[in-house]
């Protein structure tokens, strides 16, 4: 159940981030017409990257060193999945320039996902701080 919740949480954040960045990318690309296949491509990419995320960043404690290795590995696997699937979905024509642009989009989705995660953790910490304060005042 905990794993399922984690998968849903990652899937929602990654897919939302991918959708928002896709909107920007479509606008920039200047291509006026896209097939409805993209409606399946985005959640499919979201699902694959969610599986990579859950496998690379399991719900356990890491040391700082292990965390850096895991996050680096995660970013590499994620980038590879997006570049391969993006090319297969005809989102871009593989070239050095296009791959670089795609990597920038990946960084943007990565940042979006982790900023929302940090905000959520910060909100949780603030709630706990208030509860701690109430507990101290009650003594």
């Amino acid at each position, binding site marked *: 159940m905990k794993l399922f919740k984690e998968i849903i949480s990652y899937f929602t954040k990654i897919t939302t981030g991918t959708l928002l960045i896709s909107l920007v990318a479509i606008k920039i690309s200047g291509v006026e017409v896209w097939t409805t296949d993209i409606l399946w491509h985005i959640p499919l990419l979201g699902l694959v990257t969610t599986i990579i995320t859950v496998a690379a*960043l399991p*719900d*356990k*404690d*890491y040391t*700082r060193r292990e*965390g850096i290795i895991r996050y680096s590995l995660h970013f590499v696997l994620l980038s590879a999945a997006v570049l391969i699937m993006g090319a297969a979905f005809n989102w871009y024509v593989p070239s050095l320039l296009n791959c670089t642009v795609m990597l920038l989009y990946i960084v943007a989705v990565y940042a979006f996902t982790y900023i929302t995660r*940090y905000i959520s*953790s*910060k909100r*949780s*910490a603030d*709630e*706990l*701080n208030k*509860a*701690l304060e109430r*507990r*101290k005042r009650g*003594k």
Partner: protein
Amino acid sequence: MSGIKITIEELPEGAEEEIVIRCAAPDEEILKLIYALKSRRDKLPCLDEGSIVMIEPRCVYYFEAVDDRVFAYCENKVYEIRRKLYELEQQFENTDFLRISKSVIINLSKIKRLTPSFSGRLEALLDNGEKAVISRQYVPALKKKLGIGGQS
């Protein structure tokens, strides 16, 4: 215990303090309260450079297990305790103490502030300036103890 009447009588200086509980029959919650009061007041025997000293649990910031030895960290002094961490966890179950990782039990009343840390963990800044890491798997227990998302 809802709607319970609490009466505090002020005593002259030097008089012996006493707690009297009036109830039909002590239920589980009252027993927990008695146990918590008793645990807070019982002093802990510790080792300080070879000699035994008694310290008050409320002075302990956290207990930590290091290589099969358990230490009690007070404001600016560390004592060794000849107890297992799980025994301390059981003894102080209904008090301010809470297990926050495999090797640490923290005194919640000594936490100044919590901040989010790497990979879902929380970092606790203590009143003496020390920091302790709360493992992500112990965060739900902390929330429960503080009455967030469950009963405290």
